[in-house]
């Protein structure tokens, strides 16, 4: 039930921001020598001459019907834009998302297992290095190394023409390397902290005293009991993967995903697209919160869904 006031609150706040602080699309659509009448015509077309609450009610109606009309920039139906771009963003982000988390957890376990040794320090300092390098630099460098004639020239710099698995691997490899490189630092540090905290608990000490093997302790007692914060982090980043897209990756690798669409909508004040993306993100979060509750129950049966 909490989802209804949440959706209402998010749409209201975001609409206030869009209307009062967002770019004025009128001046993006004008010809080069406009008159005041033409400016007023466009404002009328965009609904800018309507009172705030009339516009907001119209927004609510659009949310209920899930029909946001046409993009003010491209003239294309908003739902068609999202239907085309969201799958591309998911396809782009998914390998990096999975690899970044799986490798992060494995490295964190390894570091925690060798806590305070040089291996732990090496992993942690590498993580800090990874976190410190700008995503932009990582993208440009990986492009130079893997895609350009100045480097290995193995993969495309730009484009997205995916018709088969081999095409997919061809276009996805370098963006995935870039995103894993950046995500790994943050993930490893976070997961290590969680795991290290778990290793100091009494039940782990007891398990050690009972003579369990290191791997049993790590996977059965430490990892399993660390799953709540790990699951929370992973699941809460899903909406960004699906709706938020990856603006920099999409922009530099020429991938027509929803990240670029959202960025363009924000910077040009394309309200129909922006409204749809906000609603979709909110719905994703509502879904994710529910999913997290269920997953908590799966990983820790003591937690009640009630």
């Amino acid at each position, binding site marked *: 039930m909490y989802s209804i006031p949440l959706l209402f609150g998010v749409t209201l706040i975001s609409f206030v921001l869009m209307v009062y602080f967002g*770019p*004025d*699309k*009128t*001046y*993006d*659509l*004008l*010809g*080069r*020598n*406009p*008159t*005041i009448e*033409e*400016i007023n*015509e*466009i404002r009328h*077309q965009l609904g800018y001459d309507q009172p705030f609450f009339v516009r907001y009610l119209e927004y609510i109606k659009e949310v209920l019907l899930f029909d946001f009309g*046409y993009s003010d*920039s*491209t*003239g*294309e*139906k908003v739902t*068609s834009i999202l239907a*085309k*771009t969201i799958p591309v963003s998911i396809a782009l982000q998914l390998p990096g998302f999975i690899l970044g988390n799986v490798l992060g957890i494995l490295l964190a376990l390894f570091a925690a297992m060798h806590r305070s040794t040089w291996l732990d320090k090496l992993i942690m300092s590498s993580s800090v290095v990874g976190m410190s390098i700008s995503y932009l630099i990582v993208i*440009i460098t990986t*492009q*130079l190394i893997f*895609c*350009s*004639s*100045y480097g290995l*020239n193995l993969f*495309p*710099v*730009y*484009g*997205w023409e995916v018709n088969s698995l081999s095409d997919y691997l061809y276009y996805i490899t370098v963006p995935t390397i870039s995103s894993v490189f950046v995500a790994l630092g943050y993930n490893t540090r976070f997961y290590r902290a969680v795991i290290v905290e778990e290793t100091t608990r009494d039940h782990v000490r007891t398990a050690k005293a009972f003579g369990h093997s290191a791997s049993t302790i790590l996977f059965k007692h430490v990892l399993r009991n660390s799953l709540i914060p790990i699951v929370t982090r992973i699941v809460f980043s899903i909406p960004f993967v699906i709706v938020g897209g990856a603006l920099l990756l*999409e*922009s*530099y*690798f*020429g*991938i*027509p995903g929803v990240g*670029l*669409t959202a960025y*363009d909508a924000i*910077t*040009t*004040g394309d309200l129909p697209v922006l409204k749809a993306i906000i609603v979709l993100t909110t719905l994703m979060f509502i879904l994710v919160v529910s999913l997290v509750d269920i997953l908590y129950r799966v990983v820790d049966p003591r937690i009640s869904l009630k």
Partner: protein
Amino acid sequence: MKKITLLPLAALVASSLALADDIKVLKFSEDGTPTTFDPVQAGTTYANTVTTAVYDTLYEYKYLKSPYELKPNLAVDMPQVSEDGLTYTIKLKKGVKFIDDPAFADGKGREVTAADFVYSIKRHFDPKNRSQGSWLWTGKIVGVDDWKANGSDYTKSIEGLQALDAHTVQIKLIKPFPQLTYTLAMGYSGIVPVEAVEKYGRELSVHPVGSGPFKVVSHNSTKTVLEKNTNYRQEIFDVAGSGYDEKVHGFTGIATLDGKTLPIVDRVELNWVKQASARWNSFSKGTEIVNTTLQNEQMNEVLASKHPVTLKPEYAEKFNFRVNPEAGLVYNFFNFDDEYFGYSEDPKIGAANKALRCAIVKSFNWPQRVSRFYLGIGEAYPGFIVPGTDGFDPAMDKASIKQDIAGAKKLLKEHGWNKRSLPVLYFPGVSSTRNKQFFEQFRGNLTKIGYPKNKIKNKSYATFGDFNKDVKMSKTQLIPMGWGLDYPDAENTLQLFYGPNRSPGSNGSNYNNPEFNKLYEQASIMQPSPERTEIYKQMNQMVVDDCVGIGGYSRTRIRMWHKNAIMWPQRDVIGNYLKYVDIKS
């Protein structure tokens, strides 16, 4: 047995490869993205490139001719113009068809008629289409303004816009408009069938249905793919008639294309790559993008010399290039609505304001601007008439583009400006590193003439729309902007100073000089002639003398293309050039 089983597969692979080899694909990049291909909104260079490739216009520019020159495209001949210059009669080619599309009853493209042209221009005056091109004809074609005022009813005819028969268009003007034919070569005048508008509605923007040499087969925010329109009328490449000059174009191999049927390539892939590094990497590896524009970032890596421009041997071996000044200019106008820059009823204040404008003009260092931001190639010129257009005078006094610190200081002193009285100055621009650098350079020059550093501030806007809003509402003190020519006539830039075009119109400076206005009105109805050229020169001198702004400079671009492409890269003004490009197999 195994061999036999694999044979069909091998044959299939071989035939696919052969097919792939047979298809000629032009792949090129641009630094922006078009948002729509509806002719009524073809306001950007990117949109114009595609719109003119997929829609027919009555006229087009000769591919290689410099200065620009028009030739018939869908029209049979150049227009027949009445003695008084008010009536244009244009015959259309017969048998030209739109592409096959589900918009048509049987899915087959029907013949393009004069009524389609009339309908396409009418669309600009229907407010729901949000036309960006209506200003070209507003107040010029008889009856269009009334048609719009009366509700844009397509069943009602417009006196000045008639289809006399299926293949004859007649345009009647309120007053002579010598630039009319130029406007009929712009993407805005692309001919659209009513069936497509009815079927796709607003989504016509991504489902163009035209009769041009190409059709759009896919489009997204990073790439547009065009394919040859197999229904395209018979058109032969007349190289000599296109303005070919052996000395200029000889190295390109274009002469070998004489007599070829247009369009030559089967497919065009337009990559919209805003990131300069990605664009260059994709171009230089040679497999993805055939032509691009050299950026500042790659200049030292690629160029062996700038004056003249030559490439380093390793690049010269692989690429052709063209040094190409834009058909447009960049400038920095003062806003005459501002109390410190504009007119005043008090002659003393008016003179002081003019002195302040002129001092700022004198402080500006054009060679430094060109060197830091524009590859160090090309030169600024006095005034605001773009080189190559009628009225540009290379012999004009260059004092207005030379930095003169002592002269600027003297002017300020003579008119009583000092550190205390000089106003706080806001330099506006869209938030970006480059705009910040422009501001720093502008401020650095002003401090040299004694302008207090703390009185020069940057006003940053999140988006171009926000910046443009303030310009249109006359809220900025300065207007640092650029103007790409709509057509190659100095009238197109001189109208930027015509009083009645003041904000929100194109005259962002709000300059309003009755003498200038009178000359503009006189020249704007004159056909090209030495007399008109003289008036243009006078007007240009007038805005220089009044220190209306800092200018002008046409950014010079180095366009590069792989040697397997036979082409002459053209981006500005001419539009429909993709049909002339060939790719060597």
